[in-house]
């Protein structure tokens, strides 16, 4: 567990060394297909996965509750 935590911290720390991207350089990053979240069109697909599978959450959306599902 400690090793995993250290690994995550090292990875996070390494991000700080990344070059800072200016606002005017974010043309690709601002593309809707680059959004770091589930797309709206996937709403019902994600719902059926929540019903049919035990795992849910950690995708920027709902992580449980609100339905009689698992």
């Amino acid at each position: 567990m400690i090793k995993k935590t250290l690994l995550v911290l090292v990875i996070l720390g390494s991000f700080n060394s990344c070059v800072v991207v200016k606002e005017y350089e974010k043309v690709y990053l601002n593309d809707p297909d680059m959004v770091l979240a589930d797309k709206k069109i996937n709403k019902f697909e994600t719902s059926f996965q929540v019903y049919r599978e035990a795992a849910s959450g950690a995708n920027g959306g709902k992580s449980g509750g609100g339905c009689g599902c698992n």
Partner: protein
Amino acid sequence: MKKQISILVLMISFYGFSQNATNTYTKRVLENTEVDLISSFYGQDGDNAAVTGGIGTEKLTDIASTITVSIPLNANDIFTIDATISAYSSASSSNLNPFDASGASRGGDDDDEEDDNKSAKKNVAGRVNGSPWVESSGASKGDVWVNGDIGYSHSSENRNSIIGANVSFAKEFDYTSIGLGGNFTKLFNEKNTEIGLKANIYMDSWQPAYPTEIISYKEVNNNLNDGFFEGVDILDQKGSIINKTGNTVWSPFNTSLVENKSRNTYSASLSFSQILSKKAQISIFLDIVQQNGWLANPMQRVYFGDRANYYIGNASSISNYTSSKNTDVFQLADDIERLPDTRFKIPVGARLNQYINENIAIRTYYRYYTDDWGMKSHTASIELPIKFSLGKFTLYPNYRFYNQTASDYFAPFESHLSSSDYYTSDYDLSKFNSHQYGLGFKYTDIFAKLKVFKFGLKSFDLRYSYYDRSDGLQASIVSAGIKFVMD
């Protein structure tokens, strides 16, 4: 005194100066009102229905629609309203009362579950039958789920922090949910780094519905010659009619039903996003979820391997009970599923999106999940947006892999022991893996030239996915979405 007044005037003048100095143009968080409409059709089939104890048809169809309206209240604030309606028809849910399809209870069905239970006594002895493989006609065969969500978000002037809150309500025939949530996002490092915090509480409650034979048994005070059971033959494993006043008769293992009808969920989420380059960004999510209350589904039957089996229906079909050839005999349940009243879940996920060139990007996602019911799972997905005609059209081939270990409380049909504290035969809690293949299509018009009243069409989405689970469950879903922007 003069000095004090001078200092005050000086300070006020500084304030006024600073106001003018920061009076620069700030882009509105949302320029115009946006409306998103999404509809979907979902269908599935399989052989492991949880309502009938882990065997039986899982045929289900669902039609759902949602509308989301996002309204900019001013340059910094957005108000969002979301309404969803979902109507399903489920063969396995219909078998909450599997005896509906039998002769006498068919005619004049008013879709009232209570009357359906009582109507069985009108049947001629031996004519009452049902099967886990045949859809019944009772009230529970379909339902409508409605959901409403209202949200508000405020962005700071420099757009480096966002705070939001939402309330939600959901209702279906046996379940009600009220949710409250709050979130806070902080951007820094020239908006290259983002940290988000989110908390939600769902205060849910069951209006429990039970398998017909179990609730009827309780209603008639264990008298198998009264109510639902009056005039109905009960058969043993050999197909012989039992003496209902004898010593060896069918009875539910546990006649205490749902004692605590509440189910509360508390979740906290932490997210971290980082721009890696002009063409790549990553995010990491950690959720912590605690659930308390009645976490089992009272509709779902369990059959124990160490208790005698009893049936209603055609004696000659008992030998084929677990086969889909069985259309006219139903095994009486030993109990409803029982699960612990707490559950602690930890999912950890990450997204990595990379722009390859003008036409292709890669969207990837991975999640590891663990909980204190003994379940662990891995989810991995990849999507490849391919743009045509300068981004006007996009294709989205995608693939998703999922696997999970079984819950400590899962066992198949007739495999549980009655000495266990907790038991379920719900295959959604079993060990399996699944593959999902999909293709999406999107039309985008950044100028929203096509008008419908005051709204311009910004984009149109169409998506199809096929889901194949290792236990035989197969599903398909088609979703269509339209986004409008108000002029």
